[in-house]
């Protein structure tokens, strides 16, 4: 019995030690954002002597953070909305009709799950250049929508297939056309799957750093991650400014997560486990 209690305490110890390990660096980031650079250099682990928002004010004055934030929101929201609309239309077609080519089309979409899109960056860059979309947020919106399609179609088609066909037949007898069936009957029923798709695509668009690195040069068009890259390039030694930048960048996502942590965790794993 003693060994059982011992094993149990060891499990608790390990589990909570890892909580500390996961959270402590983020805690350090937030705490240091309220200190002066001298204070950070003296003791990076301690609490600030006085609690002030000086660093944040300075950050706001040095970099166009409001622009970064607006751009990040614009790009993520627009690409998520487009992905939701386009992927659910395609999923409706694949799940509720049996045209001869539907099997092939479904497989064709799934191929995209195996493609690491970063490897196509050179042709993508030249394509965006030709379309005149370099230094335009549309380059990111269109790319995130396109790259979000395969997984979204996969998840939504799987979900739509589980719904009984009778629902639709009743609506059709009542005179609904395809679009009304889709919009009024099916879409409200797949809300959980839409939530999953939304979360997966939102996080990847919000956090992406690779594509804006290549497509966006203008400071006023930068998203938050790429804005941080220029902040770290220019103010390397001003640690209080850097920590304030990191904290402000991380904050929106952390707040959203605290509000809906369950949906986030379920949504992100759904894509992997299915």
């Amino acid at each position, binding site marked *: 019995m003693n060994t059982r209690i011992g094993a149990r305490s060891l*499990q*608790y110890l*390990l*589990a*909570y030690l*890892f909580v500390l*390990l*996961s959270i402590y*660096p*983020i805690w*350090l*980031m937030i705490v240091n954002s309220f200190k002066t650079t001298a204070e950070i250099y003296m*003791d*990076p*682990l301690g609490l600030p002597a006085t609690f002030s928002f000086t660093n944040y004010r300075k950050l706001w004055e040095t970099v166009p953070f409001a622009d970064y934030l607006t751009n990040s929101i614009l790009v993520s929201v627009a690409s998520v909305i487009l992905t939701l*609309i*386009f992927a659910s*239309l*395609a999923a409706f*077609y694949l799940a509720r009709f049996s045209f001869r080519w539907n099997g092939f*089309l479904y497989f064709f979409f799934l191929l*995209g799950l*195996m*493609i*690491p*899109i970063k*490897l*196509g960056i*050179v*042709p*993508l860059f*030249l*394509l965006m250049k030709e379309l005149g979309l370099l230094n335009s947020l549309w380059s990111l919106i*269109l*790319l995130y929508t*396109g*790259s979000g*399609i*395969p997984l979204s179609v996969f998840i939504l088609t799987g979900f739509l297939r589980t719904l009984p066909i009778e629902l639709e037949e009743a609506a059709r007898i009542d005179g609904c*056309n*395809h*679009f009304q069936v889709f919009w009024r009957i099916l879409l409200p029923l797949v809300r959980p799957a839409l939530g999953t798709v939304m979360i997966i695509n939102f996080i990847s668009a919000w*956090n992406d*750093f*690779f594509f804006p690195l*290549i497509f966006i040069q203008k400071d006023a068009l930068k998203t938050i*991650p*790429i804005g941080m*890259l220029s902040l770290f390039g220019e103010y390397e030694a001003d*640690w209080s400014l*850097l*920590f304030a930048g*990191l904290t402000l960048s*991380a904050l929106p996502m*952390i707040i959203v*997560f605290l509000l809906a942590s*369950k949906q986030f*965790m379920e949504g992100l*794993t759904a894509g992997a*486990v299915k």
Partner: protein
Amino acid sequence: MAKSKRSWLIHLFPLPALILYVMFVLYPLFSAFSYSLYDWKGIAKGAFVGLENFTTLFTKEPFNEMFWRAIQHNLIYFVIEMIVQNGLGFLLAYIIYRKIRGAELLKAAYFLPRLLSVIIVGFLWKLILNPNFGALNTFLGKLGLESWAKPWLGDPDTALYAIILVNCWFGIGFAVLVFLAGLQSIPAELIEAARLDGANRLRLLRSVVLPLCMPSITIMSVLTFIQAFEAFELVYAMQGSMGEPVYSTDTLAVYFYRLAFGGAGGTDTVAIGLGSALAVVLFLIVASVSAISLYLLRKREVQH
């Protein structure tokens, strides 16, 4: 039932998704395939050269040296992630599965880092690992372990491992959730039956739990492999596009970035032909390994 005149409109439904997918996912990848067969002068396409770019990549100095060094680092990346992130991740998932107080809090805490942009993670840890003012060395000093303090990212012997461990910090919460989903899908009767048969804990874990968790373990391994072979952002954020110090943290994707956008082999010229050839090689590695393991997974599932 009378067909409505406008029923052909249904074929418009998948079109927007199809167009964007083909244009921004398929077309770029297949173009990269074709680019790899041409000679390039800057961003101007030259003559068709067959497989010459591939031969250069594998046999000419300094390209071959860079390639083999980088692929080794990708392999180390994969192995350490498997052991640390997935091994510990499974252990933590199992602890949560065996009932623990505060399970929801634990899951959320482990998962929190996964929400941050990789560039934020990289910059944050770059500050923490700083040799002079970083939190880690200060922390070691407070424990009386000054001798353990190191310039973690400046020393070629530790830099790669430091980056990989940061990646484990970032990814472990996701691994825990995937494994936990796998564990929770095991029918409770099976565990009960094994226990009634007198299986002890270790035996239970080895002969019942682990085999039944194979789908989630396989999926996590494939995802880890893909991630390890595409490792770019963290290296770029922490060590720049040269994989400093002296290429000790270079990976295939970082090398690819240098070839595609300049900076390979000490020159600033872009080498789109070579870069595209490397993209093809990377694609073949990732796609074949994931296809094979998912095929094996399917086969195993059918047998059960």
